[in-house]
């Protein structure tokens, strides 16, 4: 790993972390669904991932680092599992099932939205 890669990783992870914490702490929106701020962060990350995939990021080193550093620190899988774990602990299995489906479905919708949006622009 060269110095440029390390700088990109440090910059990307710092920006991803700050943006996630800002959204998690400050965003207050109510869209009628049981969507929390952590899920909003993950949906935005899915949208950005869709854009990256459509530009074929795996062939570009800088974009690959952007994916691993920025998106890796911006999105959070452990908090998503924690949300499900809390519902599991409270024995709210139906809510757990629907929350889980909701997040996965919306993530893929956001992903393909970003993907096709970028394809149209290109």
């Amino acid at each position, binding site marked *: 790993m060269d110095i440029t890669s390390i700088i990109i*990783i*440090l910059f990307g*992870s*710092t920006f*991803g*972390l700050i943006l*996630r*914490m800002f959204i*998690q702490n400050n965003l207050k929106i109510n869209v009628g669904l049981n969507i929390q701020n952590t899920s909003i962060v*993950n949906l935005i*990350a*899915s949208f*950005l*991932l869709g854009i990256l*995939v459509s530009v074929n990021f795996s062939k570009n080193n800088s974009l690959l680092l952007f*994916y*691993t*550093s920025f*998106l*890796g*620190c*911006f*999105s*959070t*899988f*452990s*908090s*998503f*599992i*924690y949300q*499900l*774990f809390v519902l*599991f602990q409270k024995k709210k299995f139906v809510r757990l099932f629907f929350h*889980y489906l909701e997040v*996965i479905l919306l*993530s*893929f919708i956001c*992903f393909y939205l970003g993907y096709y949006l970028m394809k149209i622009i290109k």
Partner: protein
Amino acid sequence: MKITNYIYIILVCYAATFLRLLINNNLIVSIIGSLFFGVVIAKKVTYWKEKIILGGFFSCFTSFSGFIYFLYKILNQGDWIKFIIFFNSIIILNIFTMYIGFWISRKIT
């Protein structure tokens, strides 16, 4: 004090990112993350320690986008059954692992 805590969050975030890159396997990373996340949430920690460990380290260590990208690659193969089995098993495995971490932590303390 507050600034020092924010610096700690950024530093653990860097450590988590490099550790994730070193392991370079989303499934292993998510399982390790869920296990230790479970251990931490079972303990009573202060607000800032929670922010540093959970928000700084584990959130940067595990990656939702990596999970979605992994599922996208399976979906691209056109195998729907494999896709459904994979995403359900990953979620169930992670919830179960977090529960194990939580349970171990409760038993120890």
